[in-house]
C-alpha cells in the first residue's frame, strides 16, 4: 500500500536538529539565562583557582613571617596577612581546593547513596518504602548541622570526617527527591512498555527510570554543593573540621575572629570567598532548574 512510503506524516526534515538530545536542549536553555552563566563563571573561576592556584602561590600558606603580622592589604600581601604573618591570599587559594573538594565529594556521596535508597523505595514500594522513608524522616527531624556535629563528635574531628558527616546529613534530601520522582515515572507508559517488552527490573531501573529522574537531582546537587561548603565552613569554624594549620575557609574565619576590629581583612576576605562560591553555585543551580524543569519551557 502507498501508506508504507517513508514520507507519510510529512515532517519538515530541515527543521529538525539531528543531535538535539534532551541534555543539549537543557544546555541551550541554560545559556539563555545571564544570571546562571554568571554563576557558572564564578564557579569555574574557583575551580580553576583550586586546580592551578597552589602551583602559582606556592609560598606562604603555612610560612610565618612574624615581622609582618596583621598587615593590611598591600602590593606585597594583596589581601593582607593574618596573626601569624601568613599571606591571606595564598591561604584562601589553598582553601578553595579544600572547600570545593568537600563540597563536591560530600554531594556525590549523598547523591549516590540517596539515589540508590530513593530508587529502591520508590520502585518497590510497600514495606521497603516504609522502612527507608521512615529512616529519612528520622534524619530530617534533627537540625542538619546538629546532626553533623553529632556525627563528627563520634568519628572524631577531622576534615575527612566532616566530609562524611555532611554527606550523611544530605542523604535524605536526595533520597526523598528521587523517591518522589521515581513514584511518578514508574507510572509512565514507557515503563509499562519496557516491562511489556520483557526487560528485567535492573535494566528498567538504571536505563529508564534513573536517567529520567536525574534532572532535579542535578539542580538540587548544585545547590547542595553550596550548602555543603557552608556546612564545612561551619564545622571548621566550630573546630570540628580541618585541623589547625590547614587553610580551610571556616577555620581561617574562626582563627581570625579575635582580630575582627583591629584587622578586619583577616575575616572579610575568607568570608567573601565563601560567599562568592556559594552564590556562584546557587545562581548556577537556579539556572539549571529553569533549563531542566519542563514546566518552565515555553
Amino acid at each position, binding site marked *: *500500500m502507498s*501508506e*508504507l*512510503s*517513508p514520507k*507519510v*506524516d510529512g*515532517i519538515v526534515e530541515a527543521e*529538525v536538529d*539531528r*543531535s*538535539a*538530545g*534532551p541534555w543539549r536542549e537543557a544546555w541551550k536553555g541554560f545559556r539563555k539565562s545571564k544570571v546562571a552563566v554568571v554563576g557558572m563563571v564564578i564557579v569555574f573561576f574557583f575551580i580553576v583557582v583550586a586546580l592551578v592556584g597552589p602551583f602559582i602561590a606556592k609560598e606562604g600558606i603555612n610560612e610565618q613571617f612574624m615581622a609582618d603580622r596583621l598587615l593590611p592589604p598591600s602590593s606585597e600581601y594583596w589581601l593582607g596577612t593574618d596573626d601569624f604573618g601568613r599571606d591571606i591570599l595564598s591561604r584562601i587559594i589553598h582553601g578553595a581546593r579544600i572547600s570545593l573538594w568537600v563540597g563536591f565529594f560530600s554531594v556525590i556521596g549523598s547523591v549516590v547513596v540517596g539515589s540508590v535508597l530513593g530508587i529502591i523505595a520508590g520502585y518497590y514500594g510497600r514495606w521497603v518504602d516504609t522502612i527507608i522513608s521512615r529512616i529519612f524522616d528520622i534524619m530530617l527531624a534533627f537540625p542538619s548541622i546538629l546532626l553533623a556535629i553529632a556525627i563528627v563528635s563520634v568519628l572524631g574531628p577531622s576534615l575527612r570526617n566532616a566530609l562524611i558527616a555532611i554527606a550523611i546529613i544530605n542523604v535524605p534530601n536526595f533520597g526523598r527527591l528521587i523517591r518522589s520522582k521515581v513514584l511518578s515515572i514508574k507510572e*509512565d*507508559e*514507557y515503563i*509499562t*512498555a*519496557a*516491562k*511489556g*517488552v*520483557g*526487560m*528485567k527490573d535492573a*535494566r528498567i531501573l538504571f*536505563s*529508564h527510570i534513573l*536517567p*529520567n529522574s536525574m534532572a532535579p537531582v542535578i539542580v538540587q546537587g548544585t545547590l547542595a554543593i553550596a550548602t555543603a561548603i557552608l556546612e564545612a565552613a561551619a564545622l571548621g569554624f566550630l573546630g570540628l573540621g580541618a585541623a589547625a594549620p590547614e587553610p580551610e575557609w571556616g577555620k581561617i574565619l574562626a582563627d581570625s575572629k579575635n582580630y575582627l576590629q583591629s584587622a578586619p581583612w583577616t575575616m572579610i576576605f575568607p568570608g567573601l570567598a565563601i560567599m562568592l562560591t556559594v552564590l556562584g553555585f546557587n545562581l548556577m543551580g537556579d539556572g539549571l532548574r529553569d533549563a531542566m524543569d519542563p514546566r518552565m519551557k515555553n
Partner: protein
Amino acid sequence: MTKPLLKVENLKKYFPIKKGVLGRVAGQVKAVDDISFYVNEGETLGIVGESGCGKSTTGRMLLRLLEPTEGTVEFDGKDITKLSAEEMRKTRRDIQMVFQDPYASLNPRHTIEKILGEPLLVHGIKSAKERNAKIREFLEVVGLSDFHAKRYPHQFSGGQRQRIGIARALMTNPKLIIADEPVSALDVSIQAQVLNLMQDLQTEFNLTYIFIAHDLGVVRHISDRVGVMYLGKIVEVSESEDLYANPLHPYTQALLSAVPVPDPDYIKQEVFLEGDIPNPADPPTGCTFHTRCPFKMDICTRAIPKLIEVEKGHSVACHLYPDGTDNDIKTDGGVIQ
C-alpha cells in the same frame, strides 16, 4: 479450522478498595468480571466499550502487566498465569503491546535506535551489527527511514511515534500483538494510515491482533470479530460484519446508533441510553446493564444473563434472547463460542 492462539477463561481482576491506616479491604472494584474469549491465529479480535469498562485492564492482564485475580490465559498451549516471573519475561517475546499514547510510551531520553534495539537486547540478541540491521529493516517496514534512528521521540509527530511504537512491538517477531487504543490519540487522517499499516503488517508477518478501542468505526475497519464489553463483562461477541448489520444486545445497538453516519439524508433508528455507567465497586444486581436498558424486564434485575450463542458465531448475554436466559439466579458467564 484455525486453532485458537489465545484462549482466555473466566478471567477476573478485582481491585481491592482499602480504607483506614491498616489498609482494611472495604470492597472490591470488579474491573474485569469473569470474561472468556479466544483469538484464532492470524485474526483480529476487536474489543470495544466505553472508558472504565475494563478493556485496557483485560489487555494488560494478557501480558501479565497486571496480575489476574482469577482465571486462565492460555497462550500457544500454555497457561501463562502459572509461569514464573522469569518464564513470563521470556514469553513476552511472543506477545507484544502497542500503547495508546504515542507521546508517553517512548522514553524521551532514548534515541529511536535505542528504543528499538532494547527488545532485541533483552531477548538475547547481543550482536550490535545484527541489531542495527534489524532496526533499519523495521524502520523501513513501518514507513520511516534510516536516518530517523538517531533521533529522539520528541522530534516526531504523533503518527510517526505510533509507527515507532508498532516497530518496537514487531522487533522480537511476536505472534500476538495487543493494541490498546493505538489510534485514539491520533488525528483522524493519521488514524487511517496507522490502521492500514497495521493491516499490511498483519498479512506480512502473520500477526494476530487484539485490538482494543472505544471507537466502533475504527474497530469495524480492522477486526474479524468484535467483542463488546460493559462494566467488566463481555455482553456480545460476533463476526465483525454481523455485529454491525445485526446488533443484538441493547448496549451494542446504542453504541452503534451513536456512530455518526456521513449522510445527511440518513434517518437513524436511535437507541438512547440514559444515566451514567454504574459504579463498578457496587455494580447493579442481575444484568449490570439493566439500569440503563430501554428494554428492561423483571428478570433483568435478578438474574445474570449468560453469554449464549444465539446465531452461528454470534453470542449475546441478554434476557431478550430466550436462548440466553437461564432461570438459575447467579450463573457464571460461559465460554464464548
